[in-house]
């Protein structure tokens, strides 16, 4: 799809989220709720005694059934539907021909660790903090957006072999 049309569609989805639920979109938040739910299942004592995890279980709350975790499940379904409609469903690894698949995996893993860690600190990622924040004129949204893109440009030279 033409990027400007896809952007318009994304903007309308975000607007629908504000009109229906009074909030923006998010992705890293749902991951946090999944981890919290998993820790609560595996080691309930640890979850109840930790000041971080325990707040997500207070008053019988279920982190796996949080708005953000359900939205994350929808994101997975929506991506799959789009891929199916456009004939893009295929198991593959994408990388520059200059690097090995294993190298791609190492950096994909590290990138995931850093991105979601940073998103927890900044209370949102590109969607939850930057995009949704900008749509409600939040200063935090604009600052986070500039920090993410500025930093990626700053580090781009060091990791160019991964992509070009």
């Amino acid at each position, binding site marked *: 799809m033409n990027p400007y049309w896809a952007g318009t569609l994304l903007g309308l989805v975000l607007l629908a989220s504000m009109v229906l639920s*009074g909030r923006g*979109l998010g992705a890293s938040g749902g991951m946090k709720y999944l981890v919290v739910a998993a820790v609560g299942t595996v080691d309930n004592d640890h979850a109840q005694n930790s000041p971080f995890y325990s707040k997500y279980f207070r008053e019988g709350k279920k982190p796996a059934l949080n708005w953000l975790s359900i939205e994350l499940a929808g*994101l997975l379904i929506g991506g799959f539907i789009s891929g199916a409609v456009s004939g893009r469903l295929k198991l593959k690894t994408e990388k520059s021909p200059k690097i090995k698949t294993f190298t791609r995996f190492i950096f*994909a893993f590290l990138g995931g660790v850093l991105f979601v860690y940073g998103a927890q600190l*900044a209370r949102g990622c590109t969607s939850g903090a930057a995009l949704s924040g900008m749509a409600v004129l939040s200063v935090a949204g604009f600052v986070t957006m500039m920090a993410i893109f500025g930093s990626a440009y700053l580090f781009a030279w060091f990791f160019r072999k991964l992509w070009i």
Partner: protein
Amino acid sequence: MGPIATLYHLPEWIDLVFALFIGIGFGFALEQAGFSSSRKLAGMFYGYDTTVLKVFFTAAIVALTGAQVLSYFGFLDLSLVYVNEYYVNAAIIGGIIMGAGFIMGGFCPGTGVCAASIGKIDAMVYLFGGLTGAFLFAETYPWIEELAGKNFKGAVKINDMLGLSPAVFTLLLVIAAVCLFWLAEKAEKRFARKEITSEC
């Protein structure tokens, strides 16, 4: 009149049904934008593909303008819509860490989920890293709590900070976005890499 779930005190399960459908729309839009390809996303930082900027800013101005218009006509009560709170240090340092993760991993969390949904194995590895990152944050929280809460400014709005009305700021942002689109189109021609963009 919105936000519907808050104003009409709808039961929680209906809000969760909204969440599911909003998520489906979100994933569909990201995938249609071409965001299930890491090399396309990374192109933003080398100039050969600027789809990220085009989609991101189009979405931001559509949602922002739409919300302002709906609020003006009384269809949306913006005081009931969540506004992200501003913790200066956390927003900047968190953003810098995210940028490093972006250029190493090639995805942000939303595009990573979307790419994994159509079968990109590198995206699945990225998401495994993402869950690990969320776990590490939870476990290291006692040490990072002070930094996370430093310089709290509340839910400040950028137009208030600049002393502008929301409408004037929105108009300025639309003009800025159009200028950025023009620059992005120029960059794509200047830094074109046909061998990459034809694949993704």
